[in-house]
């Protein structure tokens, strides 16, 4: 069941995927693509926290959160706090999350992504000014979908079916 947790996750994989996530966010996204864009970096960090908690943790998440703050031109710390909280929730739910197949796991990750985004919203509300609208919650959908595609692809890659047989 938990075999993939041991089967992959070398430093090369971890750094490669996180760098890829950062690069994907540097594309000149605009309009609706930008509004719905999944938070690639957050998905990558939480994925590795789930499967390699000894290697990726609060420090990396915090640093990548500062990077996200730079990208949006907002106060340093806004995303960093939210990412750290996301890591905490995933560590807390880790053993539970690892039991699910991709679709159910994505459904469980949805509230986690939502919580992270709500913390970004709250921190910005306190530090800068009230938000104009709730478009800030749109990437949650993109991130959840990306999580499903990512974990589903990795299961197929390891030669398993997409759903658990009960």
């Amino acid at each position, binding site marked *: 069941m938990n075999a993939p947790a*041991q089967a992959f996750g070398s430093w090369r994989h971890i750094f490669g995927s996180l760098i890829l996530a950062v*690069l994907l966010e*540097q*594309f*000149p*996204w*605009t*309009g609706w693509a*930008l*509004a719905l864009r999944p938070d690639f970096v957050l998905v990558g960090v939480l994925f590795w926290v789930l499967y390699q908690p*000894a290697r990726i*943790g*609060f*420090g990396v998440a*915090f640093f990548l*959160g*500062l*990077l996200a703050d*730079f*990208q*949006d*031109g*907002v*106060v*340093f*710390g*806004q995303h*960093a*706090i939210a990412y*750290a*909280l996301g*890591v*905490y929730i995933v*560590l*807390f739910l880790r053993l539970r999350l690892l039991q699910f197949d991709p679709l159910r796991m994505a459904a469980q990750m949805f509230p986690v992504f939502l919580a992270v985004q709500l913390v*970004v*919203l709250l*921190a*910005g509300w306190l*530090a*800068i*000014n009230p*938000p*104009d*609208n709730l*478009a*800030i919650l749109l990437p949650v959908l993109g991130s959840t979908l990306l999580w499903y595609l990512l974990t589903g692809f990795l299961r197929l890659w390891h030669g398993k079916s997409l759903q658990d047989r009960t």
Partner: protein
Amino acid sequence: MAMPGQLMFVRQLGPNARLLIWLLVGVSSMVLDTRYQTLDGLRSGFSLALQPVREVLRAPSAVALELQGFFTRHRLLQNERDALLAERAHWQNQLNDTQSLARENAELRGLLQLPARPGQQVVRAALLYQGHNWFAQRITLDQGAAAGLRGGLPVVDANGLVGQVSRVYPGSSEVTLVSDANQLTPVFIERTGQRGLAAGSGRNQMELRYMPAQTDIRRGDRLLTSGIDRVYPAGIPVARVTRVTRSQSSPYLRIESQPLAGLDRSQAVLVLVTEALAPEAQAVQP
């Protein structure tokens, strides 16, 4: 039970303590950044590291645009060329007028012994990156301190005022758009000449603040920069009024307007670099 890869006896801090520590670090970095602006070095570092990446990743969309341009129809190009020639003749006429006016203006200023207006240079810049606009409406341009940019300079496109340079890095710069909620632009109403203060009100909208209820303003009026702030040159189009509502409870009108510049569309913009004022002129300023 201990899992494989997990220690039997805990020798490091638990998740609760770690979360608490990182939350404290996060809150203090927010305080340091908002109150004391001490983290700008980190911003410059990120900017230096990411700029080459962004320039490379901008290439695919540029290539797509090029290809699209390559396959335009010949007829379309001819039509466009005719229109452009007509337009050029028109502007040539205007330019002649402007030159004679500028000469006359210089002579009059000389007679009145007024100081000459500071000269102006234009730096062409292109959009490099755009982040989420949840809290700050900012775009990143591909020109920076190396091209002579500094904080506070106005940025325009073909249709109007885009915003103001707010942060400058060696090879790129951040522009706060006029629609940002913290961005104020001194304007006047083109039709009546009355001055006012326009503020961003979020997503591609602006509002004209503190106009008394009897102000003569209607839908369709254009707002231009007034130039009294010495930041923006006078007469740059800023916005067009879209709605004027009177409220019983407030002594002021509620005036909504739409920025004229393509804030979310413009790919190429101009930064107006004014030459620095002479030292004695600066000393007079409060």
